[in-house]
């Protein structure tokens, strides 16, 4: 059984995202520790990419800040190693990044290093079902789940994608890019039901979720709720003082979905 499954064993999972290296990796590491303390079930670590085409302005700007501050893939691996060996983080962690970050590092080398430092899965938004074999075949050798994404436009593709999914399924709540939305108009219950009719793999919803009310609402249909931009905004606002704020926010979201 994949380690990621543990995240879904105790009720609804809250899954926070953070852009690694914004403002620096020490702050990122402290935020992850706070997230675990606050009850997060799984953490998504964003490895910054120069041209993140699936991101809205909040995560895009955080990625550029992180890169300018000197964040690299190797430094992120070191941070993860530290989280696992020194800082007591035991909840599952996945990398969220873009195909070229993995490809340019060498898919094999990237998977090997990820598994060695204690990463459980990858989310690659620019690797759809049709292109996943090149990555997934290597991921499987290293016990890493390549997370499948399902969008409101997936329609008849849902069962094909869901049947091969592992870890969890990332349900994209809305059209467009990541970012806070006041209103999510997709028929989430139907989308989740369609996914669940094809697989037993847990599903979590992300894109546009920021308030405890939205999270509570989403968790009625899905097994977990993913929040990115709202957290990245807190980090942008508080900088090195963000960990405590991030912890408090995660706690409010965890409470909302329990």
């Amino acid at each position, binding site marked *: 059984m994949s380690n990621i499954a543990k995240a879904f064993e105790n009720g609804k999972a809250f899954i926070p995202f953070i852009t690694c290296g914004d403002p620096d990796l020490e702050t990122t590491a402290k935020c992850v520790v706070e997230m675990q303390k606050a009850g997060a079930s799984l953490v998504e670590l964003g490895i910054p*990419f*120069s*041209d993140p*085409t*699936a991101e*809205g*302005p909040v995560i*895009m700007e955080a990625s*550029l800040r992180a*890169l300018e501050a000197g964040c*690299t*893939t*190797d430094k992120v691996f070191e941070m993860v190693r530290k989280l696992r060996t020194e800082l007591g983080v035991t909840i599952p962690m996945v990398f969220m990044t*873009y*195909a*070229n*970050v*993995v*490809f*340019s*590092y060498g898919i094999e080398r990237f998977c090997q290093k990820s598994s060695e430092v204690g990463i459980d899965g990858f989310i690659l*938004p*620019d*690797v*759809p*079902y*049709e*292109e996943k*074999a*090149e990555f997934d075949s290597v991921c499987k050798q290293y016990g890493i789940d390549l997370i499948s*994404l*399902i*969008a*409101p*436009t*997936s*329609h008849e*593709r849902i069962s*094909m*994608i869901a049947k*091969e999914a592992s870890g969890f399924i990332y349900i*994209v709540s809305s*059209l*467009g*890019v990541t970012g806070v939305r006041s209103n999510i108009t997709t028929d989430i219950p139907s989308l989740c039901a369609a996914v669940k009719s094809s697989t037993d793999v847990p599903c979590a919803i992300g894109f546009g979720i920021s308030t405890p009310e939205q999270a509570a609402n989403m968790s009625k249909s899905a097994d977990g709720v993913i929040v990115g931009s709202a957290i990245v905004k807190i980090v942008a606002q508080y900088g090195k003082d963000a960990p405590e704020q991030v912890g408090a926010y995660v706690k409010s979201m965890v409470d909302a979905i329990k």
Partner: protein
Amino acid sequence: MPDSKGRFGIHGGQYIPETLMNAVIELEEAYNHYKNDPEFNKELTELLNEYAGRPSNLYYAEKMTKDLGGAKIYLKREDLNHTGSHKINNVLGQALLAKKMGKTRLIAETGAGQHGVATATAAALFGMECVVFMGKVDCERQALNVYRMKLLGADVVPVTSGTATLKDAVSECMREWTTRIDDTHYCLGSVMGPHPFPTIVRDFQAVISRESKAQMLEKEGRLPDYVLACCGGGSNAIGSFYHYIENKEVNLIGCEAAGRGIDTFETAATINTGKLGIFHGMKSYFCQDEYGQIAPVYSISAGLDYPGIGPEHAMLHDTGRAQYVAVTDDEAVNAFEYLSRMEGIIPAIESAHAVAHAIKLAPTLPKDKIMVITISGRGDKDCAAIARYRGENINE
């Protein structure tokens, strides 16, 4: 299980968010249907001939030939097309396709503004809504084209993210497309992006070599020895090469923008300085750092200022069928001025990159060799920038 589609050797594919997958599948199905539809092709040919002014001339540049003293030089005059560049060939095809698909809105990226102007033109003609994304830096260096697009009824959105140039305009278009798919067609301007775009754009641009091959046979009774075209994403280059690929004796040369030189960081010469990667929906060569971060490229030419190259070019490079050379800003500006004075033809600064390589190559060849240079666009849009490059300030 569906395989990765749209491969050119190892290059190409569909590296895009799941949200867009059904959109590109729908596009592929529509294209496969209409490309063999006599009615569609009749309409497109009529548009190309009656509206865009095709076929474009294959002009014997006699003065230039004599001046350089080597190969006989012909210019394929895409600059004479309506809107002033080869971009209209692809845009009319895609806009017609989009209309058949029931789309009412076109979005497009643009670098120099030539593709944006062509898209705005087609949108005006077909009564479609049009939004063009253009890097803020490019909006400034190509202000005339921004005005033209607005005049044609398009919204021009200046893109401020990243390097605020062509790659960022492409990224912003992809973001916009994921937001609004139902009524919107992304009218991609080059032979890049996810499948089926590299194939669609190539097929629509292949009219260049289809014509030049026939024109050459008529004028010279044989095929040329060299075909030169400038190459950013590579749409005019693939259009210029395509029907010659099967004729192995024809040398195909793509001219990349070296900017301040391929040994500097201020370059956009992808084949000459890039490495294999995955970006903007495709596997191909990209200018990038050791961690795969896309490099901030530079060229005086806003249209060649792109860190990648189309996947079919990447394959032609791998197989050695085409050669890709690098041309600096300085060489391109010299060629811009040279062609203006020598033949009375002001080429786009993009096309001047191909002219620059011809100036180097032609004198080394015997007089019985024949060379075709694609003049992909006209240079009116570049006059202010070239004047600035020469230290002269003209107010447009």
